[in-house]
């Protein structure tokens, strides 16, 4: 099962390398990892999507907590949260334009650039809407696709 784990860390050099090396040394699998400073730049927030059964994810959380620079670890899966991901998709300008624009409109995606060669689209959303959008535009010929990895916030 996939778990969304939210980690508050001290924003110092070496923290990220400690966290990422933990995954290799403990044999954990992660799907995505995002890192950026919080409002207080002394801290950074990491959102990671980890894959494993409850026992493995519990170990992941405990091992993360054991790191001195890690302040708080919460498995927010199943809680009252909003999860979002940003995806940038590049599609050839010669593909079927009307369909492309219509699909984009339908999913609330934004055309951020249109030139002779390419149309670049930005979409922000939860996993379901992003995956459906990608499925819809796939037949139009995706040249490049970049996902930011998920971020999550508690709504409580």
């Amino acid at each position, binding site marked *: 099962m996939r778990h969304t784990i939210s980690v508050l860390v001290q924003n110092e*050099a070496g923290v990220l390398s400690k966290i990422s090396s933990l995954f290799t040394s403990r044999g954990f699998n992660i799907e995505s990892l995002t890192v950026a400073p919080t409002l207080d730049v002394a801290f950074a927030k990491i959102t990671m999507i980890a894959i494993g059964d409850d*026992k493995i994810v*519990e170990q992941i959380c405990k091992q993360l907590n054991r790191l001195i620079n890690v*302040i708080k670890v919460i498995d927010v899966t199943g809680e009252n949260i909003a999860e979002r991901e940003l995806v940038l998709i590049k599609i050839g300008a010669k593909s079927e334009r009307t369909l492309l624009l219509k699909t984009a409109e339908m999913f609330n995606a934004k055309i951020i650039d249109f030139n002779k060669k390419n149309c670049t689209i930005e979409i922000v959303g939860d996993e379901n809407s992003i995956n459906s959008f990608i499925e819809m535009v796939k037949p139009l010929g995706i040249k490049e696709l970049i996902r930011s990895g998920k971020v999550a916030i508690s709504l409580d």
Partner: protein
Amino acid sequence: MSDKNLLAPKVQKRTLSGAQIFMEALRKEGVEQIFGYPGGVILSIYNEFSNYDDIKHYLVRHEQAAVHAAEGYARATGKPGVVLVTCGPGACNTVTGIANAFYDGYPIVVFTGQVDSDLIGNDAFQEADTFNITSPCCKHNYLVKNVKDLPRIIKEAFHIATTGKPGPVLIDLPKDVLSAKTEFKYPDKVDLPGYNPTYTGHPLQIKKALHLLYKAKTPVIIAGGGIIASNASNELTQFARILRVPVANTLMGTGTFPGEDELCLGMMGMHGNYWTNMAISHCDVLFAIGTRFSDRVTGKLEKFCPDAKIIHVDIDPCSISKNVPVDIPIVGDARNVLVDMLNVVSQQEAEKTYLKRKIWLDEITEWKKVKPVLKHKKDELMPQVVVEEIYGFVKNKDVIVTTEVGQHQMWAARLCKFSEPRRFITSGGLGTMGFGFPAAMGAQIAYPDRLVMDIAGDGSFQMNIQELATCVEYNIPVKICVLNNGYLGMIRQLQHVLFNKKYSQCQLSGPDFVKVAEAYGAVGLRVTKEEEIIPVLTKAYEINRPVVIDFIVQPEEIVYPWVLTGDPLSKILLESPEGV
């Protein structure tokens, strides 16, 4: 001087170099001994030693040995051991030692030199990425970027190394940081928002655990290294005696419970006693304290304590339910938890258990009759006999025994019945050959008047044999008992049983250890017959110099009992399986 100035508090402003701050900070931490090896980038520190004669530096002959010596010192005293080495190869050579302290959970602080900050990343001479190389085997590590951070970092390092589950902390010191100057003020306390070890067990969990133990018919306590780290031996002993629960120990928990007590089961695990493993396999409540349930302890996980409810106390939440699923987890310091349990334990409830406990202890007494048979040929010096005689010789003395890793270690751990913690020092988690001798050196430096003895094999002794020079130079009078069988005995026995006697690369044509000892300026003695053991030990004991005793033992002896990898703890070999 104006009145105003007279009234103002006297603030002593001291501007010091990074190297001087290092020395001052060590002094503040009460460090008296340090193990090290100089190199170009840390010469500014070495330049200061003459100004700080309260801090004694021991020059080892290999950096790995410096770390093991520091760990030996830490294990014997409970205080952190300190290491100072240079960058690149110096730092890389410490990795084994750091990992050893990490897996066994002992406090050491390692200072490594680093190339100048502006050279980092340039592949400069003797540059290595020490921070990233050591990260996975340190409890925490630092690369100092500004001399202003140095006092805080050193303060934090000693705090982190010695609190919670103890462990190694490394500080990487670029050369320019050591020469840069700043005002020195050593912080009184640390501010680590991400580091708050849990020391007190949850009262409700403690209550639940006690109730489970009251109801138990066949309970067993497992005492791990956490008992030593938290100084909980007395509380453990009291608790076990009140509830009359037999106590097994892991390799790391040797000496935590009186060895001659009727409740003492001795060592469990792969080469543990038959009765210990049988008792654990048949228990209905397992009370494990300060152990992380390593594979060497549990045997086949799925069949470990099949019928037992498990209570697990550990200060490290990661250890709980990592390998063995636990019914009552208690995160906390072993001593605090046991003190809390002793405070609420009901003597009345305890006494109610004594009748059923007698039945259980009688059952264990039957198992205690099962021992591996020593097939003793005439004129052969059996390694087990050597270990038993050594134990008999030292047991009433003020002694610390260390071991290397291998057959001799397992014999020593099983046959020496230590009754106090910090008397038996051995590498458990990492299983580092070459650990015991430098660890003995560190322990002897901590306690110059004790008898410190390394029980070694001819393979592992050679992994840090160069430290004979250190011992001779500082007259560190450790006694090294080499059980010399001309083999990597543990490898040989694995190949004997699991690879059908096809021996590969396990035979050693060792040096003449007596001559080696003499060449270093130490004393070399040899034992080839049983009747020589005690006289030679007595002679070695009376010599206040390092002594190597070369015991020429029967070369093909195999360590039994033996639970093969993948077998449950209850499947115990007492002799070679049929056909082997």
